């Protein structure tokens, strides 16, 4: 049986999609804190630590199940998924590739750094025409992570991934 490394597990995790926004992998979302590989062969045990996004997000339990599934299909049955709450997840952890993938899916990525307690949404880009002339329609959207915006140039409504 071949050796399994941390890098191989990370690569497997890259095929786990965010259930709410399937164009993003959980790597893109920045929720993987740690991957530990213990033992080899039949005795291998993988421990994956993730930071949940929103407290009430139904995707969290789906992500855990998907992780077990993907690792299990690679022949590793002994998988633990741990939650780490602190420090809290922030949209600042979304990768550059993740931001690019959001744009391609018609979702405007967070416009600013979330470390400021309540960022101003002054620079939200339209994912269709790249205009910055946009306005908020509703601060809450179809998922906990989204708000609903509209472009004042091409007039298309679009989802905005809120800085968090």
């Amino acid at each position, binding site marked *: 049986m071949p050796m399994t490394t941390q890098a191989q597990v990370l690569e497997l995790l890259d095929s786990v999609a965010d259930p709410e926004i399937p164009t993003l992998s959980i790597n893109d979302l920045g929720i993987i804190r740690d991957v530990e590989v213990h033992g080899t062969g039949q005795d291998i045990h993988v421990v994956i630590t993730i930071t949940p996004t929103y407290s009430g997000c139904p995707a969290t339990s789906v992500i855990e199940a998907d992780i077990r599934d993907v690792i299990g299909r690679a022949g590793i049955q002994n998988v633990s998924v741990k939650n780490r709450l602190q420090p809290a997840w922030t949209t600042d952890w979304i990768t550059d590739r993740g931001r690019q993938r959001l744009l391609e899916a018609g979702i405007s990525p967070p416009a600013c750094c979330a470390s400021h307690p*309540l960022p101003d949404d002054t620079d939200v880009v339209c994912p269709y025409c790249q205009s910055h002339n946009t306005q908020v329609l509703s*601060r809450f*959207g179809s998922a906990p992570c989204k708000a609903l915006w509209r472009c004042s140039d091409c007039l298309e409504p679009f989802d905005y991934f*809120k800085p968090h």
Partner: protein
Amino acid sequence: MNKILEVDQTRFELLLRLGDNALILGHRLSEWSADAPALEEDIALTNVALDLIGHARLWLAAAGQAEGQGRSEDDLAYLRDVRDWRNLHLVELPNGDFARTMVRQFFFDSYHLLLLEGLACGRDTEIAGIAGKVVKEVRYHLRHSSNWVIRLGDGTEESHARMQQALDDCAPCVPELFEADQIYLDLESLSIVPEIHLLKSEWEHQVSGVLAEATLQMPEILSAHTGGRQGLHSEYLGYILAEMQFLQRAYPGASW
């Protein structure tokens, strides 16, 4: 050894208070689902409800561990009788009209945010960790409810009158927010919770700022509903629990 047990019992009480407030208000807000005045608001209120129910899961799971009797978050949510609930009277108030829902939310969000900010810098690392996570969501809730208080207060004659009525309805529940019983004082001396007098003065300062902008008057508080933290509730809570707990009571252990 006894000292540790006492601290665990005190932490258990605090975690129940936090979890019960979040769960009962989340349940109340979910009653607006498919019934709000506009689609955007329907989505907003159910999102806030979802956040709060998520918070309740974190707090109640931690409460179950602090208690050490093997009770899960679900056991605590579905199998406790009314006298064992530790939530504030404010969160069990019926929704009323949209104005009352928003005033109740604004009062609670303002309190909730200050409390969580204090817990997040407190000495209990587990409680501070959960608070540091949920506080970000509560900041967003407060922005939403403050905006509505200002828009409706400084709106039409009708909306202004309804908001003023809503303030009258919610005001008797305010004194309870800042009541410190022995459990709270013990937690204060352990630097786990923020000092109650700071919490109160900051709340009054922030709320009066928003109400002034909304051209609304904080009514004089003539009577107060208190005792929620000791399990003394209004009749409303019994109805909420009857609806929320029915399935687990009628079909113990049911899952899907």
